[in-house]
């Protein structure tokens, strides 16, 4: 194979890996949308918040230390050596559940029957709130998140691919981050677990009932409020997984919440209600933006990843307003 072909393959592979990350965030969106019809803009910030909290627990940070120190002139930092990763993850999960409960209690409950766009704007408010809160609690500096997953380029893959190059060409093998492969694997496991959960557990079935028909679910006695807490908790869990992956890859920092924005075009492609849609959409966007940057980017100044996903979604909407997997929207009077 010629190096051009090999490079293209490498770009596609990396695109797929990036796509997995988008899919993970989009997955959280879809879950909440299906169960409550809410377009949760805060999903990306949930991931950031989860990652910040996890690092905080792991390293034994004192919450709000900065605020306390600045106000009272004290000097708190850490309360100890930190804790074991598994425990920290469990505790973070507990925080996410608490958060879900609070969100339902304080916000969602008061917004039932509001128009979707109002709910959407409320979640934008939530996103800002959580972003500020996360920074106040744990500090805004970029943090390293290490949960023990391997990372770095795979030498084995580099060696294998080097042999694919045609004789006499200069080719040094493909670069692929082991962490990305892990992320992809974990994403697959996550989707399988979620599917099993919704198929084989009581709560899962209730969730699906609500997603299918709110009214019917209510009449058979499923409490919508409980469902909302559950589904926001699950979305919190998905956010935690996404936060861990993304944080391990590029540090826990504000830019994490920008992936949330990228998840929006993913959803437009995949539709708001389809889990496979979220995954396929994420992969299309991931591969699409990497390929575009690789092929066209250099000609027009590069950094096209900034907008490619959105413009793709825009064009796509012009032809299929309901998304790739969505049903046709029928309007009646």
């Amino acid at each position, binding site marked *: 194979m010629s190096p051009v072909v090999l490079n293209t393959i490498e770009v596609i592979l990396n695109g797929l890996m990036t796509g997995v990350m988008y899919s993970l965030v989009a997955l959280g969106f879809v879950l909440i949308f299906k169960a409550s019809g809410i377009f949760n803009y805060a999903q990306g910030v949930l991931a950031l918040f989860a990652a910040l909290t996890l690092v905080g627990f792991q390293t034994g940070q004192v919450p709000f230390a900065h605020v306390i120190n600045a*106000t009272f002139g004290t000097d708190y930092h850490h309360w100890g050596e930190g804790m074991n990763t598994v425990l920290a993850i469990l505790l973070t999960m507990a925080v996410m559940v608490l958060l879900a409960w609070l969100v339902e209690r304080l*916000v969602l409950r008061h917004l039932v029957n509001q128009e979707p*766009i109002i709910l959407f704007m409320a979640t934008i*408010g939530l*996103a800002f*709130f959580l972003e500020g*809160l996360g920074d106040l609690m744990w500090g805004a500096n970029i943090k390293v998140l290490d949960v023990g997953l391997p990372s770095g380029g795979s030498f084995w893959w580099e060696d294998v691919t080097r042999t694919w190059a045609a004789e006499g060409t200069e080719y040094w093998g493909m670069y692929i981050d082991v962490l990305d492969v892990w992320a992809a694997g974990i994403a697959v496991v996550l989707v399988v677990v979620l599917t099993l959960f919704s198929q084989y557990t009581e709560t899962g079935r209730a969730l699906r009932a609500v997603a299918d028909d709110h009214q019917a679910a209510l009449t058979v006695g499923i409490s919508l409020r409980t469902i909302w807490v559950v589904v926001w908790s699950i979305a919190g869990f998905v956010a935690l997984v996404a936060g861990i992956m993304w944080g391990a890859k590029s540090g826990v920092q504000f830019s994490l919440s920008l992936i949330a924005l990228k998840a929006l075009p993913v959803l437009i492609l995949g539709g708001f209600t389809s889990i496979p849609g979220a995954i396929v959409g994420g992969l299309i966007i991931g591969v699409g933006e990497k390929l575009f940057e690789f092929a066209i980017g250099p000609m027009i100044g590069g950094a096209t990843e900034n907008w490619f996903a959105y*413009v793709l*979604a825009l064009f796509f*909407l012009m032809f299929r307003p309901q998304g790739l997997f969505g049903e046709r929207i029928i309007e009646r009077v």
Partner: protein
Amino acid sequence: MFYREAGDFKTSYVDDQQTFPIRFDRWGVRVLLLVAFLVVPFLINDYWEKSILIPFLVWSLAALGLNILTGYCGLVSLGTGGFMAVGAYASYKIMTAFPEVNIFFVILLSGGVTALVGILFGLPSLRIKGFYLAVATLAAQFFLIWLFNKAPWFYNYSASGQITVPERSVFGIVVTGPEAASWATYLFCLVFVVLFAFVARNLTRGRLGRSWMAIRDMDIAAEIIGVPPLQAKLSAFAVSSFYIGLAGALFFSVYLGAIEPTEAFNIDKSFLVLFMIIIGGLGSIFGSFVGAAFMVLLPVLFKNIMVGGFGWPTDMVQHFIFVLVGGLIMFFLIVEPHGLAQLWRVTKEKLRLWPFPH
């Protein structure tokens, strides 16, 4: 009986259709305008100009623009930052290509250019709605900023990639660049704001405004009773972008003087303006001003209290403001979706009845 609308009988529809039908409001606005034009210019100093008054005026224009699109026509846009950038770069290109054109018209023309770009990005609104459209406007935001960064033509091939405003004057009074006096820049912006607030008020209460609101409230019924959706939506995009373009042009040429697009017009600006209209009041001209004032004053206030009072570092105050604003957004959407403007209206109603409730 502080505030009266009863006893203010209308004898004809002409009276009822005045800009401010209630006498009290009419006088209030007159006094406000007198103070704004005749008193403030003598009191203004650099601090008030740069941190409060000019930002307030510029953001008011942007909020008016977004409110026309979102509050009146029901189309949510997250592309405000991008459209402001169009206004800014249009003014820069016009100023440098045609130095003889008066800055007043440069700003107007920049609004016009932005209106055209707005129409272009508004085209998808004919087929898509709600948050689908919100996402589509993100394309405008990110693509436009990228374009201004990457295409050297826009910044006249300057080495830094920045654009810097040349000095311009109106009636011989310098209004742009470092030499401009505080009162001059203030009055220059004020003229635009007053003029176009008046225009917005007129547009929103006439045929065009009604067709926007009809589309917002029930688009299918609107079309069936005779509102052309294409015209209504695109005119909303055009007018809205025009205002936002004006704001962008003033933001660059009068307020900052030199900008770099990624910083000046990033997505946070889009959210900022969206928050202004939610807090101030969706679908309210008055609310656009209240929201802009609120979002401009809030950080100033808290910086003073917390940096000055508690000795907090500025970035922490910034995060605190995030929490506060995020909380307020949720609060307003839950408690008073019509924003501060509605709270004001309710207060007026109470005042009218005072001291005899009911």
